[in-house]
């Protein structure tokens, strides 16, 4: 009997379905249009089509992994449930005050994110837990219930409860939930001590409120999807991809759905890490360029970097600091306003600007012929001969080069350039923008981009990758097979993962070591129950401990991997050393401050979910030679069009070298190999481009 792993990745435009046959090591994929109103419809019809076309049996599916942008979109479009918030008396405005700073310094008309819960649905209850966890004032249970009744009368369906210092002692929040559930069994309740038990009231409340806001949607959508999949005859359990790049089971996903916000991009970063590893490259920048945005994730030593806070639903899409802080472990990545649909214009200074405004899927680039008049990056690529109109998007979509040229003409006239020169300008400016964002992102993490290889995926990654790499001083570009759907493959190699955090806020020198060790064990025990429920059969679990540490007097913490437990007073030196080492690694220098504070402790448990590492066999082309012919394409170094050789990627034998300039085509992607570069398919199936020095 065959054994399939099924990956389902719902994006804004397309739902990608990928099946990997674990015995034969082959994969099948299908792109279905996303059905935003009821996303499970697109999933089910996509699966049906793929299984019918490839004659696969539903009962042979051994496991399923799902990623979706549904929750992120619900947040952006403000389509979550009517949500209420209960806080400690005196603090309901914290959610709206944020941290009082601006994300942009020079804009007088700065747009701040509208709080998800309006002031009239934020109510207060008398109670007080102290900073040490002691009860200073008991919970006023009568007032609590009166407040909740009032919120329910106002139509609230989901409730966030975020009380001061609840990270130190959750007793009031838990008592509140018990009381509320008794009277309102259908009301969804999210506790801050459950969702993000960490010090700093604004960030914790923000995370809890977002969780509450999407919780009813997660409940209904996941239940419906699971039942529809079962109806197809798939018996395998459905796993959800988390923002952290790990998997979990449905109940955990429903409990804290805020963990799912970045599941799609996380899969892309995992795929980048995997394909890099297969070619023996540990440090890669995973660069995924699609229709409206490009995403960039840093992979070090084969593992994507994890961040412990990110932002959702930015008021200004690409502006850091304009969204809601979410204190949840997530794969670290940036989103850049650059994609095939990015619109170009000549600005007030007479300069060519590209993006972040995008023509999106509707009307789309001018060449789609759906009414778009603005010149986009895709129009430029078509004009330059980089794209073949007959094979665009696997031949499923007709695009018109004349319409592209028409859109580019006015910009060319304004800047006294020929059409092709302007098109090359669009191509180059968007590359420069992406390189600029990448350069700063990498520098913020203490590295230089030139130390990495660039791994390109998405429709635009292979088209733009080499030029972006050159600008970053990167010499090697890696293009995995089926670059257009690589991200969905990432789902199938994710491990099960659970992250847990608790606030301690103690000086290292004054630690009760017994309590310290117990605190870690408690987190590990809680995490272990989730792993066991995800992967029955006692999988091998690896445990990582970390802590948010700082020198006394500092206002920020550094998340530091800790040595293995159990901890005793003798562990002091080792923990201290781990912090100093990490501090030096990140900041290059260490201040002479003697005392260290532990603010939060963290555990991450992971267990392998799949049986083997993914191996994707190359499909072989029937063609006798790899070279398909030539086509007219722009060669910037000559400033004119030349006949550029076109190769069929499937026909390239491992080890066969190609000299640039050249175009390498496969069904879902087109790679542009620049002059003086050399490209070859390696034994792992990746196309490796060496740009030389």
């Amino acid at each position, binding site marked *: 009997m065959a054994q399939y792993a099924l990956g389902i990745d719902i994006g804004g435009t397309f739902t990608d379905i990928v099946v990997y046959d674990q015995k034969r090591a082959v994969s099948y994929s299908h792109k279905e249009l996303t059905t935003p109103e009821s996303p499970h419809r697109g999933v089910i019809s996509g699966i049906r089509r793929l299984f019918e076309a490839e004659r696969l049996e539903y009962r042979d599916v051994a496991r399923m992994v799902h990623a979706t942008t549904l929750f992120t979109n619900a947040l952006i479009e403000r389509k979550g449930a009517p949500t209420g918030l209960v806080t400690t008396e005196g603090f309901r405005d914290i959610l709206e005050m944020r941290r009082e*700073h601006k994300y942009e310094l020079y804009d007088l008309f700065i747009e701040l994110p509208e709080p998800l819960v309006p002031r009239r649905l934020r109510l207060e209850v008398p109670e007080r837990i102290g900073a040490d966890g002691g009860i200073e004032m008991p919970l006023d249970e009568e007032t609590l219930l009166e407040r909740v009744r009032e919120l329910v009368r106002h139509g609230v369906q989901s409730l966030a409860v975020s009380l001061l210092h609840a990270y130190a002692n959750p007793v009031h929040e838990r008592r509140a939930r018990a009381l509320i559930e008794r009277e309102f069994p259908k009301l969804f309740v999210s506790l801050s001590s459950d969702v993000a038990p960490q010090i700093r009231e604004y960030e914790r409340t923000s995370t809890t409120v977002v969780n509450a806001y999407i919780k009813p949607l997660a409940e209904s959508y996941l239940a419906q999807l699971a039942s529809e999949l079962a109806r197809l005859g798939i018996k395998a359990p459905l796993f959800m991809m988390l923002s952290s790049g790990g998997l979990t089971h449905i109940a955990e996903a429903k409990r804290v759905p805020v963990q799912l916000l970045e599941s799609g991009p996380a899969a892309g970063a995992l795929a980048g890490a995997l394909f890099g590893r297969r070619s023996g490259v540990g440090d890669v920048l995973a660069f995924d360029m699609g229709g409206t945005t490009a995403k960039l994730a840093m992979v070090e030593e084969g593992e994507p970097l994890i961040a412990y806070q990110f932002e959702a639903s930015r008021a200004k899409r690409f502006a850091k600091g304009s969204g809601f802080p979410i204190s949840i472990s997530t794969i670290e990545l940036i989103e850049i306003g650059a994609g095939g649909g990015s619109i170009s214009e000549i600005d007030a200074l007479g300069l060519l600007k590209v993006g972040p405004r995008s023509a999106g899927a509707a009307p789309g680039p001018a060449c789609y012929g759906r009414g778009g008049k603005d010149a986009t990056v895709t129009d430029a690529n078509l004009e330059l001969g980089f794209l073949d109109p007959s094979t665009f998007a696997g031949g499923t979509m007709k695009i018109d080069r004349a319409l592209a040229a028409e859109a580019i003409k006015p910009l060319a006239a304004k800047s006294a350039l020929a059409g092709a020169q302007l098109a090359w300008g669009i191509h180059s400016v968007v590359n420069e923008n992406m390189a600029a964002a990448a350069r700063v992102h990498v520098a913020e993490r203490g590295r230089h981009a030139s130390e990495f290889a660039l791994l390109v995926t998405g429709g635009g990654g292979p088209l733009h990758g080499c030029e972006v790499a050159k600008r970053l001083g990167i010499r090697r570009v890696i293009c995995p097979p089926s670059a257009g759907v690589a991200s969905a493959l990432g789902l199938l190699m994710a491990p099960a993962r659970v992250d847990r955090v608790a606030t301690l806020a103690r000086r290292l020198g004054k630690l009760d070591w017994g309590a310290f060790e117990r605190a870690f064990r408690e987190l590990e025990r809680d995490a272990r129950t989730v792993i066991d429920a995800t992967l029955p059969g006692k999988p091998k679990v690896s445990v990582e401990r970390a802590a948010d540490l700082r020198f006394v007097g500092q*206002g920020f913490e550094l998340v530091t991997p800790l040595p293995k437990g159990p901890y005793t007073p003798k562990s002091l030196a080792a923990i201290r050393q781990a912090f100093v080492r990490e501090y030096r690694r990140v900041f290059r220098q260490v201040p002479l401050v003697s005392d260290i504070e532990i603010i939060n402790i963290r555990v991450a448990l992971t267990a392998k979910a799949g049986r083997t590492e993914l191996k994707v066999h190359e499909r072989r082309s029937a063609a006798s030679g790899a070279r398909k012919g030539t086509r007219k394409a722009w060669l910037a170094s000559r400033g004119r069009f030349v006949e550029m050789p076109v190769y069929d990627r499937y026909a390239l034998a491992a080890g066969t070298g190609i000299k640039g300039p050249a175009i390498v085509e496969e069904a879902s992607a087109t790679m542009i190999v620049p002059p003086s570069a050399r490209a070859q398919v390696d034994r792992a199936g990746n196309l490796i481009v060496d740009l030389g020095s």
Partner: protein
Amino acid sequence: MASSRFNAVTLEMLWTRLISIVDEAAAALVRTSFSTVVRESNDFACVLTDARGQSLAQATESIPGFIGTVPRTITHFIKAYPPAQLKPGDVLITNDIWLGTGHLPDITVAKPIFHRGRVAGFAGSVAHAPDIGGKIRSPDARDVYEEGLQIPMMKVLDAGKKNPTIEAFLRQNVRVPDQVMGDLYAQFTALTLMEERVIALLEEQKLDSLDELGRHIHARSEAAMRAAIREVPNGVYRQSAVSDGLDQPIRLEMALTVKDDEIVIDFAGSAAQVMRAINVAMAYTIAFTSFGVKAVLAPRIPNNEGVLRPITIKAPLGSIANSKPPAAGGARALVGHFFPMMVIRALSEVLPERVVATVGSPLWCFNAMGQRHDGSAFANMFFSNGGYGAARGRDGAHVLSWPSNVKSTPVEMIEQLVPIKVHYRRFRVGTGGSGEFRGGNGQETLFESRAPGPITVAFLAERTRPEAAPAGVAGGGAGAPGEVLINGAQVNPKAQHVVQPGGTVLLRTPGGGGFGLPGKRARERAHNDVASGYVDS
């Protein structure tokens, strides 16, 4: 085909590259810096200039107080150290308040970028040091000598070589020598990064220097700024403002003259400098005043020399807006932060749709010192902000840092750090100025001392006098002035006070000004204000 090598495409790409070079250096600097104001409040800048010290690009996230200061310091460096005296690897330094940014903690450094044997440009950086000696953050300093160590212009690195004498002097004069030196080296790292990136760019583009590129950047920026100024009707627009001052209010006067495509701003008539640390050196006046002009007329043009060319800023020497030695300037923000608002108000007469009403700034700070129950000492500062001003089409945000950018300290952190209980932190309802569009509310925070003995408290608190209340625009009402109360009674916010165990401190920050006539407020907005409790019903 195109006549110049700098066309719409190539110039855009190279300009983007220059900005990304300073942004990359800024990211490296922030990351390696110890100073919390650098990390948390962007209190730094990284700048590239041409060989004459004219700025080409400034890091996107550096705060407005540094617009143009580094290039001006670099031109002073060039006078003191003409190119013949410079070698590759040299780094120049100063924190002189009149050559630099107006107060001693800001250390400016610059490095000549050599290419093909000549100075092709300069990499510069300024950052707020963790300490500079002298009295700690006190507005009472009588002169600059009380404020700490002054570093004259000199080579801190000579052809890359450290100078042990300078380093020894620096270390001996600051409280946290390792951190101060660490931050200085972080600045050097940023300079080297800019230098390397610029040289690579010049090689790639086969350019001798940044001058030709600079001419194009300056010309386009200047032309755009002039075009923006031309849209403002000619005239003289006057503004006056009152700051709380220390012992008595301080009067600020400004005349903004628009003539065709140029603006002249003159602070003649403003109060004379005082024997306290709230004097503003010219560099800081220029930075914040031009920020006001730019924020209204051309917010999207990146900061560079060309933008500033059509703007002339003057203030009488010896006035509070153009101090002369030995005036102290440590708390210059208390006066300097009024300047951009004055510009904005001046332009509001003719461009009401492009301005915001007065903001409840400058920032507020609560400083508490005492002992914990275990006998250990504490001294902490907690920041807070007032309401933001309204604008046509939008109500002011409740509580926002402007023109600086300082985050508030979480209540849970305050209670973990010091023996102080926070009873509430909430909007100060009804304090936003009325108007068709309402000003943002300030906030009120009630602190109670739980320390075993008396604690000492001090404040940075502005706009507490009625005449300093944040004014409205186009008929909008003023926001409420701020208040500081101890044990329920109003106190002088500029003085130090002692609070006994169980005593309380209530900080009430100002509301922002309103926009337009209150009678024109839309019914739904008024209704929502009442329903939400943003105003008293």
